[in-house]
């Protein structure tokens, strides 16, 4: 009897992971780079510097996409 909730929880976790992955793809489509990858890069190549936190990083990505010079189409 205890298995059912466990299985349900498992399914829910999988669903969350799927949503997380979907969100990642969706952010990618909008040109918002992956924050974890940015952190990994900063740690590996610029260990002395403080990386942006998640909010700053998102704000930066938005600014680049929309306030930048990249014209978009007709």
């Amino acid at each position, binding site marked *: 009897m205890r298995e059912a909730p466990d299985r349900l929880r498992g399914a829910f976790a999988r669903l969350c992971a799927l*949503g997380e992955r*979907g*969100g990642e*793809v*969706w*952010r*990618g*489509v*909008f*040109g*918002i*780079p*992956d*924050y974890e*990858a*940015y*952190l*990994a*890069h*900063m740690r590996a190549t610029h260990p002395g510097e403080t990386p942006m936190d*998640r*909010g700053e990083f*998102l*704000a*930066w*990505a*938005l*600014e*680049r*996409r*929309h*306030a*930048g*010079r*990249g*014209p*978009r*189409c*007709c």
Partner: protein
Amino acid sequence: MNKLLSILLWGAIAVVGAFAFAAFALKRGESVSAVWLVTAALAVYFLAFRFYSRFIAERVLQVDPRRATPAERRNDGMDYVPTNKWVLYGHHFAAIAGAGPLVGPVLAAQMGYLPGTLWILAGVVLAGAVQDMIVLFASVRRDGRSLGEMVKMELGPVPGSVALVGVLAIMIIILAVLSLVVVKALAVSPWGTFTIAATIPIALVMGVYMRFIRPGKVGEASAIGVALLLGSIWLGRSVAESASWGSAFTLAGTEIAWAMIIYGAVASSLPVWLMLAPRDYLSTFLKIGTVVALAIGIYVVAPHLRMPDVTRFVDGTGPVFSGSLFPFLFITIACGAVSGFHSLISSGTTPKMIQSEGHIRMIGYGGMLAESFVAIMAITAACVLDPGVYFVMNSPAAVIGTTVDKAAEVVSSWGFVITPDVITQTAKDIGETTILSRAGGAPTLAVGMAQILAQALGGKSMEAFWYHFAILFEALFILTAVDAGTRVGRFMIQDMLGHVWAPLGDTKLLPANFLGTGLCVAMWGYFLYQGVVDPLGGINTLWQLFGIGNQMLAGIALLLCTVVLMKMKRERYAWVTLVPTAWLLVTTLTAGWQKLFHPSPSIGFLALAHRFSDAAASGKILAPAKTLAEMQRVAFNNYLDAVVCGFFVLLVVAMCVYAILISLRALRATQPTVQETPFVAHAEGVAYA
């Protein structure tokens, strides 16, 4: 075994495509199902992608999947990020696809469904997708440099600067014409105006949600936004029917034009997270969803194409736009066949994110095929309409008058029989008071979509809902483009002003920002207002001006591609870019020449300007002007249009001369003289398919 399977598969696709083409080739004069048109297009796309794009990638460009891309070499987790092929495909498509492929094909439908469809297919396979892919390739080999920088590198500094001024001019015209499409769709339409107005608070809610409540949850916020949007369409009907609210949202064309101008100035000055970003997510969501829904809808409903394959308006006397099939079809349909604007995207963020040169084909060529498919959807939706309804919606008031009786009489006299009752009933079905003279593509496409989607889902009673859904979807991403475009235009203007007086170029300085925004909005606002009050011109003038500009830019991009091939010493294959370049130059220069010097005032800017200034000089007043001052304004506007058109023509001729000189030098060289970044292999252990 695999090889056999491949031959069978591609053979089958070729056979299906041939059957689809035969279906409408053999039944000329009879009504044909739209399914055949869409199937034929899909077969062409698959075959072109499998064979032609592969030929270009492997033989012509010799892409090298072993070579590290800028994303890998300069990976900084921010600008340069190796990105999954499919995610990048989506990113690239979302950036290139806008309202363009929805407008041009609808206007071109006045010549029948065949000329437009054939040009969209031939254009994308041989010109548009080739341009997007080779520019992407060139940029990947140059650290992701932009088109302007590459023109500077390969052609010299003068052509580089001249090209930038050309881009700004095209931006201004596109912003004006897209705003005009919105004005035509929303004038005297309280339901439409309410739903578009509602997108502003909805975007603000989403912006705050993504910034403060659940930072970065783009998917959640988009879902909430879509739900609220659908709610606003549903509410719109009651608003339109209410006596007090309905009249508050019933605005004349000029009022909506002013609203757009103010909106453009204010929206482009707000922080991006507040309004632009959420709207961008929403419109992309809707764009992808709607195109997929429409494609499925066409296969489910299988509507017949009621527009003839070729109408008599190929002779240039059409009411929607003037000018004969050659050259005007080829500038009316720009986006969807070949769009110069894409060369800016292919040399924007995409080349900095690509994992492997092996992906260039899928993203550059394949991305453009998807945009072309949107154009095919648009022409299909316009051609399943009753042709009478199509012409009533797209002809200017100066031609068909302002009453349903007069409009029915005029359109019927062209051979597209329609009764006043049908016109009134169509307006009623979509929940509007009038459908007369709603040129610009969006409303026509919306009626076509509404009829297809209502047959698939919800029946007749849902037609008004789907109509306003389609209007919302188009207006939403036009407003996004106006906002984003005004920002880009401001940067370009500040860049130029900075050369005159440095503080004006400082993007952190508020007064300089306001000046840049003000100038940009004033320029496109001027063209917009002129289009709204001009009963003859409007879309007729501005869309063609945009088409000429956009194709000129494509010509410049393809000239760059040709120079790059020559400098790589790949001149054997230079025909791959030379053929489309030559075609674009021939059509756009002819069109530009005719728009300037054609003796007919309905085509030539100067002829029309002279007619009005001559009449004004002798004290006569010509309709639609009512005063001498208005006469002079019409003349002035046409001189202005002539200057812009002449500028585009001179621009491309100058580029052509530069490209020929440099190509000749490259031909004489014995070694490749191309300026690529040196070869670096992928890092150890990195392997991208």
